[in-house]
């Protein structure tokens, strides 16, 4: 590895602008003539709209226009859609209700957009929004998914009888029932995976600009995938054809999944710009973000796992109710199905698995992928069950897991996935050692002497990343392919631009992608620019989520670099009168192997563009494009061990040690990978200890709609983390990368809850394990 190549801890190129305040986020954009928007939102969880009176608002100072749902419908703007078709067990397609960008006759959750006000200033827009009079007839609301399935529950959409969107199954139910019936031991649990609000620090924002002279739209938006936004807004929402719509996602302040989706606001801002003739900017305040960003998780699950007399798992049956909120968000159907039940085999060799998932409408914000997306839910189910099984069987949690690990690869699970490689014991052993697992009982005793209850818990996770092989996801219902594109442009003086369809919103692509090019061509990363986030610059791309930018996005760059190198070698061979096969690229030079003949990289690039002396028939220039479609998912895996101390008087949990041992395959920049693990683990600990989204079950009001009410992890809630990596290179892509973006959030919640339940001696504990809940559980517990 060179000092800037693959494997080097290179400080990030993009940091300079962020640490000096020169980053450019959507809210920082100013367009001449730009005006400001505020949305009128439903204060009710469920209501009929009897009428909307906008006249008073229209007369307010600075107001340019007030626009409502009937107008957007009249202009032919389409409903929002879910882009992944899931079929129920009976073969029927999922039951998708209509989601108008502005509600027309009914609102279904608090925050549902009803009208947009465009005014000279943000303050004036907000004042006027309060003056829009909407005549609502309130309806009963339901917020919890199990309640929404009960007879007599309020009905949200006429398309979905009983609020049931689909009743889906994966695996062999009969074989699983047979295996469980013959099991020597069975473990049963009921598990709630708490609803979370992603809370990227930059609130969502959109700036729509219709240019009348060119009959062309530009949308600056907080998106993880601007090309998908353009595709969907063009093909399904009828905003504008793709050639008339440019989508720019500039610096984006975190996403964690919540900025994958196309929301009503960017559609409405673009449409409103044409209606009003001015550029329209909207920026969410934090409470709007809480109310309307897609939430994550929210599963109710019953699980049953069977073991033989030798403690090998014989079967696993899972029954899950998934709350999808009031409308189906863009990938909401895939998250609790193909990203969830397909991971129910975990790291274990399980002969029979059956997963049943019922997806349900409720009067809450739409629910979709949030960091991990389905895989944290699967891991939580499995790893809570494994820890519980070990306690019930009276065996070591570590050794019960080890006994059941998949040990040979490739391994076909009963739930679609084919694990290509891994070494689960290596991560387990690394974590056990780093955590001094063997010495724990001594520490428990020592803590007892100080009046503290100490507990330890582990979690062995696997995830499917590198999303995803297009044909495979197409056969499962995806509306898009999940390849990635890259273009490598060598300029005439040898500097390089890499255009990628991946999108960085904190991941550091401007550095890691440049490291790859530096490794291949031997040029410094300062001569390489990574271009992303603009549909006018990058032709097409699928964006960043599902830990796919390294495994898929960088593989596309590798393919484009292969083509650039091949052409460069042809030119070099011609210039040096050598055989093409003898040319090597090293340290920024093209050399004839075994001789002292060289052509510097910049000179080669210049030769390609002057075209004075190229091989016969060769086109001038040095620029290549590639699309890379993965052949399989990748399978990052690892072991996390959490150690806690609980104050029995207050129920407060302190995380005294957190160990993460991960196998991400090959690593481009260890510093950045460590940062991804830190952040993921913090979000997982947040889920386990702090973050609970609460709707009032009667009124449907979101009670936790600000940072005063929803507990975000803060610096003093967390320890410093002890992390390491083990490496089995991924055989499925040219760089051997598995991906690291989501692991921390997937592996950590069960480790934390397993540690707390170990400390307090009861399994009766739901996330977030607040001091009040831990204290109450402790009072009702009898030690096992």
């Amino acid at each position: 590895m060179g000092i800037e190549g693959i494997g080097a801890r290179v400080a990030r190129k993009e940091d300079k602008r962020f640490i000096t305040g020169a980053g450019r986020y959507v809210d920082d954009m100013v367009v001449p003539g730009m005006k400001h928007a505020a949305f009128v939102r439903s204060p009710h969880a469920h209501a009929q709209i009897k009428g909307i009176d906008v006249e008073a608002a229209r007369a307010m100072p600075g107001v340019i226009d007030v626009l409502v749902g009937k107008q957007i419908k009249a202009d032919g703007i389409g409903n929002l859609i879910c882009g992944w078709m899931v079929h129920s067990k009976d073969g029927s397609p999922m039951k998708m209700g209509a989601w108008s960008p502005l509600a027309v006759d009914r609102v279904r959750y608090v925050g549902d957009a009803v009208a947009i006000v465009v005014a000279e200033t943000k303050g004036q827009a907000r004042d006027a929004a309060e003056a829009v009079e909407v005549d609502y007839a309130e309806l009963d609301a339901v917020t919890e998914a199990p309640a929404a399935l009960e007879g007599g529950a309020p009905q949200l959409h006429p398309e979905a009888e009983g609020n049931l969107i689909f009743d889906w199954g994966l695996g062999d139910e009969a074989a699983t029932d047979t295996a469980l019936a013959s099991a020597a031991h069975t473990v049963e649990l009921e598990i709630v995976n708490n609803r979370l609000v992603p809370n990227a620090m930059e609130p969502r924002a959109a700036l729509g600009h219709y240019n009348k002279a060119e009959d062309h739209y530009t949308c600056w938006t907080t998106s993880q995938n601007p090309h998908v936004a353009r595709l969907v807004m063009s093909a399904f929402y009828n905003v504008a054809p793709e050639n008339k719509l440019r989508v720019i996602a500039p610096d984006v302040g975190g996403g964690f999944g919540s900025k994958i989706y196309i929301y009503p606001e960017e559609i409405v801002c673009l449409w409103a710009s044409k209606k009003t003739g001015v550029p329209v900017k909207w920026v969410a305040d934090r409470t709007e973000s809480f109310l309307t960003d897609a939430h994550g998780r929210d599963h109710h699950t019953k699980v049953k796992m069977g073991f033989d007399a030798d403690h090998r798992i014989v079967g696993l049956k899972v029954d899950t109710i998934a709350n999808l909120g009031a409308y189906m968000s863009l990938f909401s159907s895939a998250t609790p199905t193909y990203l969830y039940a397909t991971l129910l085999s975990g790291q274990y060799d399980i002969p029979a698995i059956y997963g049943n998932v019922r997806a349900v409408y409720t009067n809450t914000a739409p629910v979709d992928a949030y960091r991990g997306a389905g895989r944290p839910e699967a891991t939580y189910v499995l790893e809570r069950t494994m820890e519980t099984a070990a306690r019930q069987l009276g065996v070591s949690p570590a050794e019960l897991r080890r006994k059941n690990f998949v040990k040979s690869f490739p391994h076909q699970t009963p739930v679609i996935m084919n694990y290509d490689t891994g070494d689960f014991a290596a991560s387990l052993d690394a974590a056990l050692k780093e955590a001094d697992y063997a010495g724990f009982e001594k520490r428990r005793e020592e803590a007892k002497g100080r009046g503290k209850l100490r507990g330890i818990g582990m979690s062995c996770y696997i995830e499917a990343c590198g999303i995803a092989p297009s044909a495979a996801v197409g056969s499962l219902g995806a509306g898009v392919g999940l390849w990635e594109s890259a273009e490598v442009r060598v300029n005439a003086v040898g500097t390089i631009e890499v255009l990628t369809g991946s999108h960085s919103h904190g991941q550091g692509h401007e550095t890691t992608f440049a490291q790859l090019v530096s490794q291949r061509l031997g040029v410094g990363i300062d001569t390489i620019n990574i271009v992303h986030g603009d549909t006018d610059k990058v032709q097409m791309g699928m964006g960043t989520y599902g830990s796919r930018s390294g495994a898929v996005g960088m593989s596309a760059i590798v393919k484009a670099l292969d083509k650039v190198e091949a052409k460069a070698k042809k030119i070099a061979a011609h210039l040096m009168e050598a055989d093409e096969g003898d040319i090597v690229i090293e340290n920024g030079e093209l050399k004839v192997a075994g001789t002292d003949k060289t052509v510097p990289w910049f000179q080669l690039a210049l030769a390609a563009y002057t075209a004075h002396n190229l091989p016969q028939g060769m086109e001038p220039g040095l620029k290549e494009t590639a699309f890379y479609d993965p052949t399989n998912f990748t399978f990052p895996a690892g072991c996390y061990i959490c150690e806690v101390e609980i104050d029995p008087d207050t129920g407060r949990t302190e995380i005294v040690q957190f160990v993460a041992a991960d196998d991400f395959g090959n690593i481009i920049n260890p510093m950045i990978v460590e940062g991804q693990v830190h952040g993921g683990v913090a979000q997982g600990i947040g889920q386990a200890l702090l973050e609970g989204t609460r709707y009032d079950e009667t009124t449907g009001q979101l009670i936790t709609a600000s940072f005063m009410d929803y507990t975000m992890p803060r610096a003093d809630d967390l320890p410093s983390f002890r992390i390491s990596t083990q490496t089995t290179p991924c055989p499925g892509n040219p760089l051997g990368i598995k991906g690291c973006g989501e692991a921390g959030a997937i592996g950590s919640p069960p480790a934390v809850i397993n540690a707390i339940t170990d400390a307090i001696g009861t399994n009766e504990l739901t996330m977030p394990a607040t001091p009040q809940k831990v204290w109450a559980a402790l009072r009702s517990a009898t030690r096992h």
Partner: protein
Amino acid sequence: MSDVSMVVNGRKVTGNVEDRTLLVQYLRENLGLTGTHVGCDTSQCGACVVHLDGKAIKSCSILAVQASGSEVTTIEGLAPDADLHPMQAAFKEHHGLQCGFCTPGMIMTAVDMVRRHPGGLDEKTVRNDLEGNICRCTGYHNIVKSVLAGAEAMSGKTETKAA
């Protein structure tokens, strides 16, 4: 509407603003200093921290008119005579940022933290004193490292690599 006059990053500025204009709005919208960010509406997140007469404040919790007559330093003015302030350099060197949205507020808070603790900082103090700044990306691990390293560099004990 009210007249405001203050010194921002060493430059005297005057303006006429709606009475309800927050300092953060004045900085961002009137002066174009967009490095100061707005991440919440309840003065919880700290993305808007600037220095007012040398002390860290949340610029979302004060009106522009209240800041009239004061000296304000924003992230853009933190290193007037250098490429980077030692705290900025420490955040880069120790990967104390990912998406960058909370970063200006973190750095402004960290510089003030060093001022308030002339005896030096330790991890516990840093974590405690970051109570008013939220980051969703880093898990704070590398922010804590950055603040400690930046504090050392500011005290002249160690050199932090300039970017």
